[in-house]
């Protein structure tokens, strides 16, 4: 038998003979008959071209982000995609290599990781950032587990803002339950923001206070007040970010004393996809570096004194420490980190600022026009500061509004209580630099028709 070629009848006979069985059915006899299917009702076999055609025809029924005005966000954002990102990413040296961390042959990958880390420290305003994590949700989990470790496992409560993306909180619940950490959730106030006093009184000795800013409702939180509230009880302050483009205008939590800034960097050059891939990031202060999860690339010199890069502090990781590793994360999201690095480096610091300003001004314009439109549409939190996302309420519940606006040819956003939540039932609407003034007009016109 050839490893790349499936078994033929002769091979099957041999295998069954060796196993002492009469038939393949006997081999699978342990599968209950009640779950077995005799025959699938499938159409007759067709050639590749005609299948491709009928699937394309079927897909025209989709409303795709690229074809209609789209205001989808809530954790996944559409931004400009310079062609250089895909061009660099699709180079085989990056695209097909698996775990290329051997310094002698992987300087390209290691340098990219080092640059990614450097960029993330500058955006988060913290001292060290890791080589990336799977996604924003697991980055939050790692931040909570990290806080628990830093405080030597003595504080078993994590205070978490309800306005952190509900899917992130669900992932956290899964991990926290088995780690013996109790999650206490703090709802937002009437303005959609977290009240630092409520955070302070949420638990007596939490290991961390985790907040998202801009939050799930698009609102920018009072980071200095929240950092102070967290640290007054001896807890670590954790900022989660789902819209990394906000760093173009909003200072990273490090500036306000946050111990960890982590989250999702999909906005940096990773196209919105159906379920991913995503790109988690994690930054903290240097004094906690040994408790930091994940890989870390460092700068060094080779034998000849040339600048070079290598993995560093690997002793925290599983391949050295086994069961006592700092975290079970022993990899990174290499290709997406490469995309983010190329994206940021091609856009540049001033470019990122312009991009974020464009998101903000278009969002403010849409908010203003909705406010002018008046009933039955309104902004749930008209007075609260937002970046590129806001909560819109109207004549119906969130799923209903999204459905009716889709019928008008607009992808209006994500239903705000799809995963629960103590806030008004409406639509979380995101506006980026990719939304033209035509998109905004179309949105407002559609609102006028749906009322």
């Amino acid at each position, binding site marked *: 038998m050839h490893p790349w070629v499936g078994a033929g009848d002769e091979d099957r006979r041999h295998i069954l003979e060796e196993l002492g069985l009469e038939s393949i059915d006997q081999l699978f006899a342990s599968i209950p008959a009640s779950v077995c299917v005799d025959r699938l009702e499938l159409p007759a076999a067709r050639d590749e071209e005609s299948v491709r055609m009928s699937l394309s025809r079927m897909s025209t029924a989709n409303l795709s982000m690229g074809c209609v005005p789209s205001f989808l966000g809530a954790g996944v954002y559409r931004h400009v995609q310079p062609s250089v990102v895909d061009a660099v990413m699709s180079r085989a040296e990056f695209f097909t290599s698996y775990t290329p961390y051997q310094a002698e042959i992987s300087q390209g990958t290691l340098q990219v990781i080092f640059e990614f880390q450097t960029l993330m420290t500058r955006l988060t305003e913290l001292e060290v950032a890791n080589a990336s994590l799977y996604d924003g949700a697991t980055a939050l989990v790692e931040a909570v587990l990290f806080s628990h470790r830093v405080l*030597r496992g003595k504080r078993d409560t994590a205070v978490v803002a309800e306005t952190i993306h509900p899917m992130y909180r669900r992932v956290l619940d899964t991990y926290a339950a088995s780690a013996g950490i109790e999650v206490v959730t703090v709802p937002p106030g009437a303005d959609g923001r977290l009240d630092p006093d409520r955070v302070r009184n949420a638990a007596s000795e939490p290991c961390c206070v985790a907040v998202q800013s801009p939050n799930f409702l698009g609102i920018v939180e009072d980071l200095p007040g929240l950092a102070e509230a967290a640290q007054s009880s001896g807890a670590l302050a954790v900022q989660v970010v789902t819209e990394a483009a906000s760093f173009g205008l909003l200072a990273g939590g490090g500036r306000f004393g946050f111990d960890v800034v982590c989250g999702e960097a999909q906005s940096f050059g990773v196209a919105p996809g159906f379920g991913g891939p995503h790109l988690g990031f994690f930054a903290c202060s240097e004094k906690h570096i*040994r408790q930091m999860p994940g890989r870390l690339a460092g700068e060094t010199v080779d034998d000849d004194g040339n600048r070079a890069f290598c993995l560093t502090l690997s*002793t925290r990781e599983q391949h*050295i*420490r086994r069961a*006592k590793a700092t975290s079970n994360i022993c990899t990174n999201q290499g290709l997406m980190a490469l995309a983010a690095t190329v994206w940021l480096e091609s856009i540049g610091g001033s470019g990122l600022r312009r991009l974020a300003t464009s998101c903000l001004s278009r969002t403010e314009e849409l908010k203003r026009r909705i406010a002018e439109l008046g009933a039955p549409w309104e902004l749930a939190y008209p007075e609260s500061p937002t970046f590129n996302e806001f909560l819109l309420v109207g004549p119906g519940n969130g799923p209903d509004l999204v459905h009716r606006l889709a019928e008008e040819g607009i992808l209006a956003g994500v239903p705000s209580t799809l995963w629960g939540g103590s806030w008004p039932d409406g639509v979380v609407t995101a506006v980026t630099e990719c939304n033209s003034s035509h998109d905004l007009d179309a949105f407002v016109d559609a609102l006028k028709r749906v009322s």
Partner: protein
Amino acid sequence: MSIPADLLYARSHEWIRVDDDGVVIGITEYAQDQLGEVVYVELPEVGTAVDANEELGTLESVKAVSEFLSPVAGEVIEINERLEDEPNLVNGDPYGDGWLVKISGSPEGEATLSPEEYSAFLEEENS
């Protein structure tokens, strides 16, 4: 390999010096040599209660990480704070400035080794 005559030893390669109010613990010259250059020492907090043979902290070298154990039951009363900035004191002066932790308690009744026994133990381990 130096094995001072005035100390007691553990099979996990810690040394024990009996003091007025407890015992001082470090790792032996043999242990530091096996570990290589120590780059980070994780020490327990003062006030931590430990059982005999329970993990006290970790020593991280350029090539490995290993735990060190408490040879006695008691409470941590002092830690060598110099190791935070100078972890390689453990290599340079394992029986002196490279000490790790001081614990209230006594080695009496614990399975410690005399210098001669430890020396024989090392020979046995390496034969």
